[in-house]
């Protein structure tokens, strides 16, 4: 087993485990904002770990750049979605406020 294979296995294992932890958090937490917190975490460190594993395997080829684009979009766009969802959650819980 090469060092790159070991690095891929470790990065991928950590990334998938962290992603499953975030999924469990979304399912188990009681309040809406707690669930939203885990949703935000799901596109942070776990996504970057999976991207790192993909880049170790594919290097900076066209496939690696496309993986970078997919995870980069997820990482950069998701905070705006989280803010809007938190706003919707606040409006849902207190509909009389503007």
């Amino acid at each position, binding site marked *: 087993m090469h060092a790159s294979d070991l690095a*891929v*296995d470790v990065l*991928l*294992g950590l*990334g*998938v485990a962290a*992603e*499953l932890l*975030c*999924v469990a958090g*979304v*399912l188990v937490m009681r309040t*809406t904002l707690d*669930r*939203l917190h*885990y*949703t935000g975490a*799901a*596109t942070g460190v*776990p*996504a970057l770990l*999976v*991207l790192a*594993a*993909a880049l170790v*395997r*594919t290097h900076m080829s*066209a*496939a690696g750049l*496309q*993986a970078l*684009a*997919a*995870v980069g*979009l*997820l990482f950069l*766009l*998701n905070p*705006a*979605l989280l803010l*809007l*969802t938190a*706003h*919707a*959650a606040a*409006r*849902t819980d207190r*509909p009389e406020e503007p």
Partner: protein
Amino acid sequence: MNAFVVAATVLLGALAPLLVAASRRRPIDGLIALETAGAVATLALVCLSVGLGESIFFTVAVIAAVASWIGGLVFARFLARWT
């Protein structure tokens, strides 16, 4: 079957409870589950494309990332305005 295909299978398996939660909880919590499912599906597609060596799946992953984001925005605006 390499590590990426195994990871994609595990991530696709994690979609099931999220979709159940999205269909059974109140709308705002369902939306949160749906947003998480979009992120998990995108990562699963990235893993699948690396594992199978099919470059077409990378394009699907990019489209999934953008489409799930746009869908989440629309649902969030809808919930904020009409609830």
